[in-house]
């Protein structure tokens, strides 16, 4: 055997062993075998695929491996996951660094993520316990939703009683005011209209909620579902941060103050109205009463209008909206002719129109104003007898037509005719005002159309 062969074999074996060594070193480096490191541990109820040798990342940087996992001795105990973390990253691993289990990409392995702590917290010592968050779980989320539902229910129960009380007060106030002021000023009429509207709005809201409409209504209705969810998700002991967040959102939302504000306003106004009425009664004989009353009533009118706006806004609130959406309209009084003529209005309802001409309905008095004639009232009674045969679950629209004069004149005349008919019908047939709308439409004809929407 020549020396060269020996040399070559030596080189060959040496080179291959060197490569092997390099491979070992690269792997060893990768699992931080040769780097200075410190140990820590953390506890998880579920370890979702973490195993010995799983990667540990500190704030996203590869930082070590899971060295050991202790299996809990009892079901209520947690898995203890021991980690080795490179010393280099020690400065940002604090006592409040939270450990969580993450997935490396869409298909990747599970790894243990350790968040960087806050600088106010102390360094995590060698062998320290790091706090952990449990891996995300759909069951937990459902549990959180369940918590929210319960909270909202409580809030609604709180709100419902004062609202109902306020409505009762308003009705009482309006009733006594109505009795006392037979021929009142336009302000009083306005107050009454507003009060009616407020009470109608609130009634509607409460009806909607009780019928299970709108987001809040749905929550009411879904009590059973929530309860069953609650039963099925039986393993969550503590409300998580997320649950608290969701609940807080509900608490922070405008719903509660809005309702409370409206109710408070209502009670205040009702008190004012009552006050005014009482004062009017007591001061009946004195000279300054008329002026005083006028001002008081004007104030009250304004306040009542604000309140009616508030309750109107409430109807559009996310939490109550569903009911009105399903009903097909929010407020017939605010309806414009183009909105009314859109095909979306009254969608899903059947229509029953009745046409009555001006001459059939109205007589012109001395001042040149149109009022309902006795014959006209008889006609309307007949029309209503027909309409009352139909189901009363949709709006009743009264269309006023006028073809004489300029467009604004036509509008006013049409609206006035419709209003006369509306007032007569509401009074005579005790219709719900919110369901009886008027609309002025221009066409080359004189008269009133009564359209009943029903399902």
């Amino acid at each position, binding site marked *: 055997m020549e020396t060269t062969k020996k040399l070559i*074999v030596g080189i060959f074996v040496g080179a291959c062993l060197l490569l092997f060594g390099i491979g*070992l070193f*690269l792997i060893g480096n990768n699992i931080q075998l040769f780097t200075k490191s410190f140990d820590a541990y953390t506890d998880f109820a579920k370890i979702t695929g973490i195993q010995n040798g799983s990667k540990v990342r500190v704030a996203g940087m590869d930082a070590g491996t899971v060295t050991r996992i202790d299996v809990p001795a009892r079901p209520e105990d947690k898995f203890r996951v021991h980690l080795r973390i490179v010393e280099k990253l020690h400065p940002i691993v604090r006592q409040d660094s939270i450990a969580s289990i993450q997935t490396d990409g869409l298909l990747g392995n599970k790894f243990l993520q350790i968040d960087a702590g806050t600088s106010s917290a102390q360094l995590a010592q060698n062998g320290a316990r790091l706090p952990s968050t449990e891996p995300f779980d759909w069951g937990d989320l459902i549990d959180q939703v369940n918590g929210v539902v319960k909270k909202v229910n409580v809030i609604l129960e709180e709100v419902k009683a004062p609202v109902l009380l306020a409505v009762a007060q308003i009705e009482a106030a309006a009733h006594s005011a109505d009795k006392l002021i037979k021929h009142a000023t336009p302000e009083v009429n306005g107050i009454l209209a507003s009060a009616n509207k407020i009470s109608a709005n609130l009634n509607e809201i409460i009806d909607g909620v009780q019928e299970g409409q709108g987001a809040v209504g749905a929550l009411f209705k879904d009590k059973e579902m929530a309860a069953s969810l609650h039963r099925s998700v039986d393993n969550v002991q503590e409300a998580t941060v997320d649950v608290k967040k969701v609940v807080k959102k509900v608490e922070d939302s405008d719903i509660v103050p809005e309702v409370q504000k409206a109710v408070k306003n209502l009670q205040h106004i009702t008190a004012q109205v009552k006050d005014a009425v009482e004062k009017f009664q007591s001061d009946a004989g004195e000279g300054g009463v008329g002026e005083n009353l006028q001002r008081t009533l004007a104030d009250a009118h304004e306040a009542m209008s604000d309140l009616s706006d508030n309750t109107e806004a409430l109807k559009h609130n996310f939490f109550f909206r569903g009911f009105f959406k399903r009903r097909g309209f929010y407020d017939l009084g605010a309806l414009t002719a183009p909105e009314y003529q859109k095909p979306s209005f009254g969608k899903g309802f059947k229509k029953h129109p009745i046409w009555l001409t001006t001459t059939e309905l109205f007589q012109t008095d001395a001042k040149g104003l149109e009022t309902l004639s006795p014959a006209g009232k008889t006609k309307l009674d007949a029309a209503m007898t027909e309409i009352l045969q139909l189901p009363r679950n949709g709006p009743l629209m009264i269309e006023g037509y006028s073809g004489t004069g300029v467009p604004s004149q036509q509008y006013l005349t049409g609206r006035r005719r419709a209003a006369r008919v509306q007032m007569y019908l509401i009074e005579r047939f005790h219709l719900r005002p919110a369901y009886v709308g008027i609309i002025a439409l221009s066409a080359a004809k004189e008269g009133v159309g009564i359209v009943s929407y029903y399902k």
Partner: protein
Amino acid sequence: MPIATTQPPPPSVLQSFMESIAAPIEWFGGLCLFAAQAIRECFQRPFEWTEILRQTYQIGWQSAPLIVLSGLAVGSVLSMHTRATLERFGAESMIPTALAFALVKETGPLVTGLLISGRVGAGIGAELGGMRVTEQIDALESLAVNSFHYLVATRVLACVVALPLLTVLMNFSGLLGGFFAEATISGMSFPYYFHAAFGSLAFSDFIPPTAKTMVFGFLIGTTSAYLGYNASGGAEGVGRASTQSVVLSSIFLIVVNVVLVKFIAFLFPVGGA
């Protein structure tokens, strides 16, 4: 008048069947005894250092170009296939990792084993077969040399030593080939490539699969030496020994690999560092 003959009765079907299966079993038994003797002789003095070195030179060093070239080719092909698959998931950065896993854990050892069983198995089968039929083995014995110790043990030992070394060489040239292919397509940097390649490997992914090739080496060495050492029938016998060495050592290698992979998985469960 017919002539009475006393011919032996024709062998029964069962008898001929038993004979036909007895031969391979006998052959296999012989191989096992041969392997056992090879193990024994490997540890017996005197150690034939010169011959071991010469065989390591022939089996190891002279196979190196074959291994390096194959490694480069296998690595680049694997890399291209891996890319085609991982690209769909947008996981191109996983290519070095996937390639390293494939190469180091299975492809490297197995391809090395098969290549060496082709090159070296045939060589040993032909060489020993030739020595047997030209009486060189007898000549060795007549010169007071234990031919088994001198010829067989040294070759088996050289195979056992050379296979892991060649596997390491195959792994690295495979990774290098993969790097060339990858760098041409995506311009991936060398440090990133090798860092990512070894990034997810554990010692258990590297050491046991490399060490198992010692078993491959032993299989190749003993099978081909057995066939060569017991060759008969002139040049034709030598050719037969050579061919069978390749065929049988390859088959044994592939079959035993299944057992070894399972065994390694048992010893080092997934994820063990």
